């Protein structure tokens, strides 16, 4: 019997030729790309949409109308609109259907990587994630082909997500349910096993981090949220997570699948993170969206610094915890995006 994996000489030569053409094309593309990045690095776009009424009406002069202003629950219609506004700002299009159809294709498996370390107080908002899943379905993705995930199912539940496995609904579970790949993947200083949700249940990854201060890393936003996809994040916290955060984001399977970053800044943390400490949180009532995680982190970091200054706190640099990994992620070895603010176009929109 012929071995299924045996390749005939003819097939081999054909494959080799195609491979050679492909290789040349890739070479040409990458040399073009590197030439362009040296001469004229592309600008990155970051879109921020705010809605001060996200939790309901603002208090009146006497503060008596603050019915839901301090609520953790968001107004679903306003969340939906805020997401659309942020996405339109990023893609310069009012056609939300077309925006999402550009990002995903029917038949693909979509992972929505949330951040649930902070419990109900400081995790990716459930209503926001539901809206993202709704947009994905509008773009033709079957609900069962969407998985909302993080490292641990219990943490997902604590953050308000309902664990769902099987059936024809949107799936939701942690890596604890399926484990990690046995093989290590490496880049630079990092050697890790990847979540089998990422490797086996995702063709496209949508990152939904939270805007947070981090006592070790400085900030934890889009790039650092990928620590939730590896088995050994504790090994990569020394030296302010630098260069580890950048190296983790270079892991091939992650880099190839990451398509969009939707940072939940409805509630954010300016100090004492990454856990939820009410005294160190504020409510920007915003979403920050980008295809460039480095640019998003750079802008998010500055938002945290502004809030810290407002609160009379030292800068992160003064506390010796500036997030240096953001610059590393942008360096020549990584090229994960732009951290130079002159090359980041920020579009801001205030919905209310």
């Amino acid at each position, binding site marked *: 019997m012929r071995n299924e994996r045996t390749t005939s000489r003819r097939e081999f030569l054909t494959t080799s030729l195609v491979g050679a053409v492909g290789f040349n094309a890739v070479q040409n593309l990458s040399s073009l790309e590197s030439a362009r990045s040296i001469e004229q690095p592309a600008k990155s776009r970051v879109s921020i949409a705010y809605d001060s009424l996200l939790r309901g009406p603002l208090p009146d002069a006497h503060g008596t109308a603050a019915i839901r202003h301090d609520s953790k629950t968001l107004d679903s219609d306003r969340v939906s609109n805020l997401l659309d506004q942020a996405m339109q700002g990023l893609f310069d299009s009012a056609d939300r259907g077309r925006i999402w159809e550009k990002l995903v294709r029917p038949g693909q498996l979509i992972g929505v990587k949330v951040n649930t370390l902070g419990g109900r107080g400081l995790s990716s908002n459930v209503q926001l994630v539901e809206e993202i899943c709704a947009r994905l379905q509008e773009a033709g993705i079957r609900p069962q082909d969407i998985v909302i995930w993080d490292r641990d199912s219990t943490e997902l539940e604590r953050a308000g997500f309902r664990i769902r*496995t099987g059936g024809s609904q949107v799936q939701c579970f942690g890596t604890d349910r399926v*484990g990690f790949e046995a093989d290590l993947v490496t880049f630079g200083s990092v050697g890790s096993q990847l979540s089998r949700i990422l490797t086996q*249940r995702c063709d496209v990854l949508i990152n939904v981090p939270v805007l947070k201060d981090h*006592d*070790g890393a400085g900030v934890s936003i889009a790039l650092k949220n990928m620590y939730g996809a590896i088995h*050994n994040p*504790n090994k990569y916290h*020394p030296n302010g997570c630098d260069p580890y955060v950048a190296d983790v984001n270079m892991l091939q399977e992650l880099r190839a699948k990451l398509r969009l970053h939707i940072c939940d800044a409805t509630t954010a943390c300016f100090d004492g993170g990454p856990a939820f400490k009410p005294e160190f949180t504020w409510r920007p009532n915003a979403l920050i969206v980008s295809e460039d995680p480095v640019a998003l982190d750079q802008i998010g970091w500055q938002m945290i610094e502004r809030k810290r200054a407002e609160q009379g706190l030292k800068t992160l640099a003064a506390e010796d915890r500036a997030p240096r990994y953001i610059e590393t992620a942008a360096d020549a070895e990584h090229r994960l995006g732009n951290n130079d603010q002159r090359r980041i176009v920020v579009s801001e929109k205030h919905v209310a």
Partner: protein
Amino acid sequence: MQLNGGLQTVNRPALDRTNPENPIETGAAAISSSTLSRRSFLMCAASAGIAGDILHAARRSAASPELDTPRAQDDALFTAEARFYQKLPNKRIKCKLCPRECTVGDRERGYCGVRENRSGVYYTLVHSRVCAAHVDPVEKKPLFHYLPGSLAFSLATAGCNVNCKFCQNWDISQARPEQVPAEYIPPKRVAELAAQWHCPSIAYTYSEPVVFSEFLMDAADAGHEAGIRSIVVSNGYIQDDALRAAYGKMDAVKIDLKAFSDSYYQKVVTGQLKPVLDTLVALRKMGKWTEIVYLVVPTLNDGDGEIGGLARWVKQNLGTDVPLHFTQFHPDYLLKNLPITPVPTLERAREIARAEGLHFVYIGNVPGHPAENTYCPRCQRVLVERVGFEIRQMLILKGACPYCKETIPGMWHA
């Protein structure tokens, strides 16, 4: 984390399938009801080169949560407040267990991955959480001057406080506890199992016992109450207070000295050399029987100058009677680009150390090599003949050479 090549690697299930009838393969539940006779047990040990795999982890094969949800581990069962840490403002803590001194925020873990800050209280997550348990010859640790020919009930939890690029047990040492199947085996049960398997000692090994110090201390107490000794196989990367509290309860210690240069410790181990040297000196002052293993990694720590410096340091600070094992490296984990250590490299290292005046210098992971034997430093006769983990001859009488009466340091008889 283990250094000594294949010797201290956790036995994988594949090895154990050589004896499918062996009931100790069926998991921890089988331990208490094992019907394996001592004879068949020893046969198994001799034939497979191991004495038994008591726990082993089955890997899952498909990412399907509805089909394959792993058995949940009751976290509360394994959680106990850590003993070595300091509380800081804003619910942060500083770990005082190892020289790394991780500052850990609320809901975060230290570098080892097995200690977690929960609202400002630091917890170990691995008390009694045994992810590997085997009955091993003590020579596998290796301890060559400590109860030769005896068995050690050997166990580990997940976690390690360094990240050696050559680790052979990285699948447990570099994992978080919830990622590794484990059994609840509390200290008294550990002592019972050691007695049941005719082990005069309990060995804390395979991963890094520093990170499960609380469990180690309690198991050592339980063992001593039952007349069973405790030995630890460690990287020695531990703070002095913790060392005295935890390893003070040990009867013998094997330290993996991974190199004699700080740059190697930083680049390959993710640690520091000096604290390990301090540990060795402290153990000497504490009167603990200590042996040293040095894994010789080609091109990285095998220079004559480094080996000579190591030997001189040992002689000056620990004396000439400390056994020093040069063991053969095998490519693994993140260091697969280097070859197995050539035997002549190991022999040269041994000669350098002997020339510096060390009396007991061994070569490890090379079964059948004459440098596995113990020789009398005075008359040069073979006193303990070894092949791999097997003792062929043990001639030491009352701690002395039977030929010239030279005292041979170690614990030779129970």
